């Protein structure tokens, strides 16, 4: 099974919130210098899913990322985990890429990769939280798409996919080629071994320019209205916490029960 995985580099979503500030001039959230750029966690679930499929039925995994030079780190990580090939589609920092343009650029890159059976994406990016790109890419390529996938198994040239419903799961049989957006429930991404990570770290990740994949943003402009962000702001919790204490922690526990009773919460 030939699998393409799309990954994105994002500011570490688990960095302490204090390390994110609003830039007064641009009114945008700006991570401090100490926030590392990491692989979007959901995309790593997609990479892991691809590796498990390859381990089950064989095939080849190609990982794509649209981003500046630093995105190569994420691709190297995917290679260390077990991907066969990785290509970065070169974009510059500061360029504005909405879900529509990104989906169409990745569609062009997918066409350049050539034959594929399955495309895997994370369910959403940890920075924009948009959750549009995967479905958008499937639409751009005209292939079937299952979002929020929590399980995938190859079945007689097709795949059986379970997706997360509001209650329980829904199971589908999907003909290939298809695209899945992968949810964190599907797996725990593996850590690569030190040896493989070092080898991948020394590799050169090839990059394709937008011209090389035949992508022209100008051609698409005006075809997609999109939304325009005006500002970011940080919501602040306004609660004051009443700390319940006691001689011992057991006593504190009992006191808390009494406080909750007094407040008629119990």
């Amino acid at each position, binding site marked *: 099974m030939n699998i393409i995985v799309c990954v994105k580099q994002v*500011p570490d*979503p688990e960095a302490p*919130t204090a390390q*994110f500030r609003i830039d007064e001039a641009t009114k945008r*959230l700006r991570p401090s210098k100490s926030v590392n750029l990491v692989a979007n966690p959901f995309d790593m679930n997609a990479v892991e899913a691809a590796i498990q499929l390859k381990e089950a039925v064989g095939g080849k995994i190609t990982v794509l990322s649209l981003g500046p030079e630093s995105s190569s780190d994420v691709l190297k990580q995917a290679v260390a985990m077990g991907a066969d090939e990785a290509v970065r589609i070169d974009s510059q920092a500061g360029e504005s890429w909405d879900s*529509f343009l990104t*989906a169409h650029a990745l569609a062009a890159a997918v066409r350049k990769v050539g034959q594929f059976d399955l495309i895997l994406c994370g*369910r*959403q990016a*940890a920075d924009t*939280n*948009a*959750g*549009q790109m995967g*479905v958008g890419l499937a*639409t751009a390529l005209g292939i079937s798409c*299952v979002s*929020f996938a929590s399980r995938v198994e190859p079945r007689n040239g097709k795949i059986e996919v379970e997706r*997360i*419903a*509001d*209650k329980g799961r*829904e*199971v*589908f*049989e*999907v003909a*290939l080629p*298809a695209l899945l957006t992968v949810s*964190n*429930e599907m797996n725990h991404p593996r850590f690569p071994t030190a040896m493989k990570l070092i080898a991948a770290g020394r590799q050169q990740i090839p990059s394709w320019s937008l011209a090389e994949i035949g992508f022209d943003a100008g051609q698409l402009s005006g075809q997609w*209205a*999109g*939304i*325009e*962000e005006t*500002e*970011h*702001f*940080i*919501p602040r*919790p306004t*609660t004051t*916490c*009443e*700390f*319940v*204490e006691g001689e011992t*922690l*057991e*006593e*504190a*526990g*009992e006191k*808390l*029960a*009494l406080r*909750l009773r007094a407040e008629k*919460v*119990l």
Partner: protein
Amino acid sequence: MDISAGVMIFAETAEGKLSSITKELMGLGTRLAGKLEKGLSAVLLGAGTEPLATELVNLGADAVYLADDAFLENYNPEQYASVIEHVIQTAKPAILLMGQTSRGADMAPRLAFKFRGALAMDCVELDADSETGLLTHTRPVYGGIAMARARSRAASLQVVTVRAKSQDPAEPADDREGEIIAVGERARGEYAGGMKFLRPVAVEADEVNLEEANIIVAGGRGVGSTENFKRFIEGFARILGGVPGASRGALDSDFAPANLQIGLTGKIVSPQLYVAIGISGMVQHMTGCSSSKTIVGINTDPDASIFKYAHFGIVGDFEQVVPALMQKCEELLKN
């Protein structure tokens, strides 16, 4: 009332009833349609959904596009999309409101990409400019660390998904009038796509209805083990007559089943009482529960962000605090 260029909502059902997000969407839709002086319509898909169409009218829909057909009993995204596309082409709404639900969040990008519309996901606040008819929205970015305010650019269709429990639900009234337009037959066609719905799967923790629960006891990575989760989280929830919940940390450590996840990528809850045990209170989790009436935090780390959201807190090892707390609660609840 003219439906075209108006507001349409995507109605969803759960166990044969309109789901709570649908009532919220009707409340929001009524407000926006009023502001724009346009009609409000709903699109309702499924099998045996006809009785609910009247309910949507009672909630304020001027028109309900009803596709009540056996082939829509189960969710096939491609079939659902084709029906809704047909409705959009017929009714020509300017705004389509959907829930940030499994189906809503799946369908919204399909439709927005198809119609090259404006799209905003997981909105918690929405308003419309009465002159331009364009929406302004507030939605979380960076996992909820920040909120983004945005506005739609001019488009023939604006699609948004709306966060559960963010809007006031519409109140039903018996004397409302609205048109019910059957579209199922027209849209049915011969489906030739590559997707086939096989079966629904119940998940172990499915009986737990987190969204409707009054009391939730949630455990995080700090709970330490599956045994502890069972004993302290599920055990305490049972005593309080509530249900257990979990943070993503507890899931990643395999302490808790996936369906219990609360937070940005899990369930959005707002119970009367939310007890967070061994949960650090990362914004991605708190996004899913910060609107709870009373929040209690128990954590060893006095700096844990959970205490910024909690109304009551104890700093200390939960294995010492919780057994005493459980016992005292049990005692108090007996009397």
